[in-house]
């Protein structure tokens, strides 16, 4: 080979290397100049991530600090069916760890038309970890907060519930949702290829939800629910409700409805059973409503406790005949006796003295016809006939608690006013929020102390000698009133078989610490408030007095 040929080959090789180098240089320049932004963004997206830091939902406590609703960490399990290699094996693994039905899970995992399916929302973290440890491709896990109700049935209709998204859907969980839900935080991290955090670039702090302290006492609540369940079973009733309130503060110590439900299983319970009937439902109160007319007449000076009336068994009011519950001859009764013996004729006679306008005024002064303002959603204002719609016979109905519909919470607020020496205090369930001070409830004088004391004395006689003797608690003086009201039959008249039996009273009679109301809807076997509801009152009062160590007067 001549030197000329060798030189030519060397120059060719150098040119080739130079060309390759030039291409590489151009490529590098293109990547670093033209594609720099796009590639930089790709790299950032791979090693930077913005994570949402969900807030912890506030806990709901009873008045003693016992948890009624608490958040606990759970793990949601999901799957991408397109990445599941062996759906049957994966379904079996899910059944073994999470306890779900393998066939149902297999149906989800085998559906490759979907890229995301939930296997179980808010599963137990320990069980989910066991599944995660099996490293099944296609299964994913993330932490969520689950709302637990450790007391299960206790206070269920009051607490309500939060759904799978940790949002309040009913009851106090709904009413206080903004307070209980905090604000979400955020942090941007730089992570390595293994997902480990190398640096926190930016963070926006969130805040957890506030804790709420209720006036409810879980022990009294549990006892009330037990008594209601026994009462409903004993009298084969449709439902029963009860409220226990401290008349000095308006704080509700217990608010129960039966049948109840387990808050942890709210999705399996019909909506009808979830209602807090004590606040949302109305009933015709019957004789328990008589304190409105009597209090109004005393306060207006129209009667005194010893004013005498000559009362026949039956009187005519417009087109209606009003009579007492028990047949009797014409008798003379004082105002005192009219209430303690629950004389319909006596109350209507006094009501006629007060007048339609006066009765209507007193109905509203005792808070009927409008919400009490209790901190619970969906409160009913009841049904009160406006004065312009009163007929001639209305004065014969309403004063004895028919032709008017009230809620249990309205009724207990009214009796609370009598118990609290004439001052009505707005009933409430929330004692305080977080470490804040307890708000002062609204107070309003309804009648004078003198009138309240006089009515209280009359109500004592109901329990000591009248229709409410079954409400007695040994060692204590109790003041209260029975109620037995026929339910409307839907055709403008009243049923002869469906009644609401009730008893509302307070104890100790001289310095009341508890006001208790019990209503029983459609009892069978007996319909009288004194027979059906009064014994339940006595059981609840007996427990609460001992539990709270309230001595007799």
């Amino acid at each position: 080979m001549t030197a000329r040929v060798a030189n030519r080959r060397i120059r060719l090789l150098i040119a080739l290397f130079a060309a390759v180098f030039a291409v590489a240089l151009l490529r590098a320049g293109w990547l670093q100049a033209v594609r720099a932004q796009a590639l930089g963004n790709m790299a950032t997206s791979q090693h930077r991530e913005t994570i949402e830091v969900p807030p912890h939902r506030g806990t709901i406590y009873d008045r003693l600090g016992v948890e009624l609703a608490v958040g606990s960490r759970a793990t949601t399990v999901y799957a991408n069916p397109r990445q599941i290699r062996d759906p049957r094996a994966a379904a079996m693994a899910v059944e073994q760890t999470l306890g779900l039905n393998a066939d149902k899970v297999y149906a989800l995992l085998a559906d490759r038309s979907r890229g995301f399916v939930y296997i179980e929302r808010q599963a137990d973290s320990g069980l989910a970890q066991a599944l995660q440890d099996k490293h099944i491709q296609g299964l994913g896990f993330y932490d969520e907060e689950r709302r637990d109700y450790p007391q299960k049935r206790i206070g269920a209709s009051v607490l309500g519930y939060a759904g799978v998204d940790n949002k309040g859907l009913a009851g106090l969980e709904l009413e206080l949702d903004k307070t209980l839900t905090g604000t979400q935080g955020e942090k941007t991290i730089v992570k390595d290829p293994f997902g480990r955090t190398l640096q926190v670039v930016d963070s926006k702090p969130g805040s957890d939800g506030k804790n709420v302290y209720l006036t409810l006492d879980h022990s009294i609540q549990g006892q009330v629910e037990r008594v209601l369940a026994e009462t409903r079973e004993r009298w084969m009733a449709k439902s029963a409700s009860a409220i226990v309130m401290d008349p000095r503060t308006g704080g509700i110590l217990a608010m129960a409805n039966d049948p109840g439900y387990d808050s942890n299983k709210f999705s399996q319970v019909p909506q009808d059973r979830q209602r807090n009937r004590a606040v949302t439902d109305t009933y015709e109160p019957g004789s328990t409503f008589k304190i409105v007319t009597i209090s109004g007449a005393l306060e207006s000076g129209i009667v005194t406790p010893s004013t005498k009336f000559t009362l026949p068994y039956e009187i005519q009011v417009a087109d209606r005949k009003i009579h007492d519950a028990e047949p009797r001859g014409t008798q003379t009764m004082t105002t005192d006796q009219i209430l303690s013996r629950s004389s319909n004729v006596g109350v209507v006679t006094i009501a006629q003295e007060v007048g339609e306008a006066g009765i209507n005024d007193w109905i509203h002064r005792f808070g009927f016809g409008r919400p009490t303002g209790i901190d619970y959603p969906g409160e009913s204002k009841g049904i009160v006939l406006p004065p312009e719609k009163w007929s001639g016979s209305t004065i014969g109905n309403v004063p004895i608690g028919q032709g008017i519909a009230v809620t249990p919470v309205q009724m207990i607020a009214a009796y609370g006013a009598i118990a609290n020496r004439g001052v009505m205090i707005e009933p409430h369930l929330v004692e305080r929020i977080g470490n804040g001070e307890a708000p002062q409830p609204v107070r309003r004088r309804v009648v004078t102390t003198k009138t309240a004391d006089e009515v209280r004395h009359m109500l004592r006689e109901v329990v000591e000698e009248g229709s409410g003797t079954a409400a007695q608690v040994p060692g204590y003086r109790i003041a209260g009133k029975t109620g037995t009201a026929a339910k409307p039959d839907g055709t403008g008249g009243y049923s002869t078989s469906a009644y609401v039996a009730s008893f509302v009273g307070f104890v100790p009679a001289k310095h009341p610490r508890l006001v208790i109301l019990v209503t029983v809807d459609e009892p069978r076997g007996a319909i009288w408030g004194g027979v059906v509801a009064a014994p339940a009152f006595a059981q609840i009062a007996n427990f609460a007095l001992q539990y709270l160590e309230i001595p007799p007067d």
Partner: protein
Amino acid sequence: MIVAALLAGIVALNVAVLRLNMRVDQLDNQRDELVTKRENIQSQLSATAAAGRIEELATKALHLGVPASTTYLELKHRRP
């Protein structure tokens, strides 16, 4: 030499910071796990201490009776 040493120092510092960040992240995760455990225990404690559960155990398992009544004694203050 000095520049090389300074560069090595900067690298070492950055590595130390990265290690600390990873440790902080681990501790964050541990804290979250402990918070989870504490919440779960709190929830179990509430359920265990539920008045209804205790009453049921007392009456059905231990055969204890519910007191029928309470008697109050009022003691008069006696002067010494």
